[in-house]
């Protein structure tokens, strides 16, 4: 169990670092979406199903959608 959690956390942190590094904002957004998604799984492991649900639907779906729309209306690459 703890091994799975550790692996998930490592992937999550890697995704966060990727979000930091990517110059393409769309990729960064997807990376941050991944962070949210794994966080939702972790919430579930921490016996917080309500929060996991909220995080999955909001953090992973809505926030990403909002970011994508905003990037579409501005510009895609960080200069």
């Amino acid at each position, binding site marked *: 169990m703890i091994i799975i959690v550790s692996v998930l956390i490592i992937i999550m942190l890697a995704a966060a670092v990727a979000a930091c590094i990517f110059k393409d904002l769309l990729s960064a957004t997807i990376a941050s979406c991944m962070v949210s998604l794994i966080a939702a799984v972790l919430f579930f492991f921490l016996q917080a199903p309500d929060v996991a649900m909220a995080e999955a639907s909001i953090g992973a779906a809505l926030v990403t959608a909002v970011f994508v729309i905003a990037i579409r209306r501005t510009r895609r690459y960080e*200069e």
Partner: protein
Amino acid sequence: MSFLQNYAYYTGAFGLILIGLFIMMTKRNYIKIIIGLSILETGVNLFLIAVGYISGGTAPIFSRSGITAEKMVDPVPQALVLTAIVIGVAVLGMALALAIRLHKHFGTLNLLEIREQRW
């Protein structure tokens, strides 16, 4: 192994917080800063939930018989984080709307290039 047992979640939460802060401090792109903010927020939420966890606890729901109140995890941070997430998305939407306005007005999202916003 006991380190992982004790500190895996905390490491994840503070890793997210520090990465979020780092993005906010060093990046110049407005949308990148907002991405940092959202990562920071996820980290804070994860930390709060991790604080409320009890070893071997159950979710705070009396969904079937045999669940006792003693073994439940702390419901207070969960209630807090629940609303925090929802408000978070509204605030992010607001910030991104401002980003769209900024881009329309100045044609750039690089904060260093936006001179009018400073003294």
